[in-house]
């Protein structure tokens, strides 16, 4: 036990001396939170639109006004030439083109039906889809206004049935996507600390040759491993607290649930992650290898964890893989606890799986570490 204290003291000294560590612990969370939280939004505003109005009627002008006054669109060009408009899309100056052909108003009044054309730059399918939906909403709204104006609402409308969907958004009535991303980024930070940096740190001793010196001392393998893992375990928990504080103060993330339970989940999760990190460090001889293998698993696991997109919508095989993806569990639980205030009996099953996973991984890793080193 006393040996472990000496190892811990040494590890903390080395971490403190490592010029990279302080920025990693204090600055990286801030940068990550700021960038990822602000950048990761599909809430579209200012979709650039180029308007081709060859009708120049009051109806067409009202229609284009609808677009220019909408917060979702920003008119970046006006032209009469469709080729010119297409060039705007080609050169990324406009994301969409609204084409109102000549004789639009006339046809609408005389033939009771007229068409407009909308072109989208659909390379980003999601954005084009959302843009299309917004544009359609505007068109339909305007259509209703036109009908009301020309025909009058009372005469014709009652014959049509309407079902009105009334949405309520629980836990987040402002539809603030940021509060959803903050916990996710904390998960990534904790994972980088517990898995990537811990595994690199163990391999560092191999690479620098100091492990040889350790091996001839009476230090027990298990003590050495504990001495190596504990500092990163504690730093990871510290980073979680630090990140939560920023999340609360800067991004106003609600802490609906029990923070104690959140930390309990984090402690269990870290066991798993450190186990994986230790396994990786066993099979690596250089920090570069350790980094690369950890990186590979991290990117795959993070992408699959539901960080950006819901896991339910993933294909079956991905959902099966996610049963073995520790990041997916933590990602889910931290959001449930923080944002919805889920209680222990709500997360009981996932918590137990994570706990089992953690115990198995860390035991496996420590056992294998002993074997390999002998």
């Amino acid at each position, binding site marked *: 036990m006393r040996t472990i204290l000496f190892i811990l003291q*040494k590890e903390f000294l080395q971490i403190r001396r490592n010029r990279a560590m302080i920025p990693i612990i204090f600055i990286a969370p801030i940068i990550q939170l700021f960038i990822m939280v602000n950048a990761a939004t599909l809430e579209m505003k200012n979709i650039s639109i180029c308007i081709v109005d060859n009708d120049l009627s009051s109806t067409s002008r009202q229609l284009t006004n609808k677009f220019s006054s909408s917060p979702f669109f920003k008119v970046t060009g006006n032209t009469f030439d469709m080729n010119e408009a297409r060039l705007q899309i080609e050169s990324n100056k406009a994301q969409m083109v609204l084409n109102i052909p000549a004789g639009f108003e006339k046809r609408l009044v005389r033939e009771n039906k007229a068409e407009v054309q909308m072109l989208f730059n659909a390379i980003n399918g999601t954005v084009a889809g959302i843009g299309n939906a917004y544009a359609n909403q505007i068109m339909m709204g305007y259509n209703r206004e036109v009908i009301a104006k020309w025909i009058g609402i009372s005469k014709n409308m009652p014959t049509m049935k309407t079902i009105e969907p009334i949405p309520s958004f629980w836990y987040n009535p402002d539809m603030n996507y940021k509060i959803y991303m903050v916990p996710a980024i904390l998960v990534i930070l904790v994972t980088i600390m517990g898995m990537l940096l811990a595994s690199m740190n163990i391999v560092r001793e191999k690479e620098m040759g100091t492990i040889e010196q350790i091996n001839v001392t009476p230090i027990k393998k298990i003590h050495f491993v504990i001495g190596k893992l504990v500092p990163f375990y504690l730093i990871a928990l510290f980073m979680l607290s630090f990140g939560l504080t920023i999340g609360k103060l800067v991004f106003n993330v609600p802490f609906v649930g029990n923070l104690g339970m959140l930390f309990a989940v984090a402690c269990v999760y870290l066991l798993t992650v450190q186990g994986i990190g230790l396994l990786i460090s066993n099979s690596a001889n250089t920090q570069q290898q350790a980094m690369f293998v950890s990186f590979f698993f991290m990117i795959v696991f993070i992408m699959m964890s539901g960080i950006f997109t819901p896991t339910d919508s993933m294909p079956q095989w991905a959902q099966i893989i996610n049963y073995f993806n520790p990041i997916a569990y933590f990602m889910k639980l931290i959001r449930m606890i923080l944002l919805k205030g889920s209680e222990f009996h709500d997360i009981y099953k996932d918590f137990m799986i994570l706990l089992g996973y953690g115990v198995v991984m860390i035991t496996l890793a420590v056992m294998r570490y002993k074997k390999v080193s002998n």
Partner: protein
Amino acid sequence: MSERETIITVSHLVKKFGDFTANDDLNFEVYKGEIFGFLGANGAGKTTAIKILCGLSKPTSGNATIAGFDVYTQKDDIKNSIGYMSQKFSLYEDLTVTENIRFFAGIYGMTRKDIKIKTQQLLAKLELEDSAKKLIKDLPLGWRQKLAFSIAIVHSPKIVFLDEPTGGVDPITRRQFWNQIYEAAAEGVTVFVTTHYMDEAEYCDRVSIMVDGKIAALDTPQGLKQTFEAESMNEVFIKLARVAVNN
């Protein structure tokens, strides 16, 4: 000589890696308090043998006891009674002098109080008081080496293994380093040293020369020079190597 107490006993020690025999039937004894030179060309099997004696790897067959402990079953006891310093630098470059001393003394089970006293003694002896708070990487190579040796014997081990300890340092530092070794030996520490500097072999009490995994010769430097009718240890070594090549 033979009535002296033996501290390392090696008999019929064999270590194989697959088909390759790194150590082929080694037999020797090392006496308490002597400086035992363990010589051989690169790849002759020195490092393999040292690893076995330090309890880092198991022999394929044969026996060896270190300070009375068996290499098969009492690895932990061996590790507690030996010190080790390798050709690669084994101090933590990002820790200071005192921190290195404290760490290594600590893991050998010394108490905080003893460590403090020992640190003061060491710093005074090495005249490193002014550099106590310097990082190892900021120290000149020679100082690091001296410090590494002092730390290797900080817990007063019975035996200290030195694996090519003087690689890459200048002759003056080497000379000073050997003075340290003599001092330690005078205090009763057995020194087991590998080197490929033949002039250093002259400083040893007894020398064994390994060729192709076997011990080709073992005697005092004086005795070896007589047997091989050589002027210097260097000549002895070349003669032995030539025999090996001719075979």
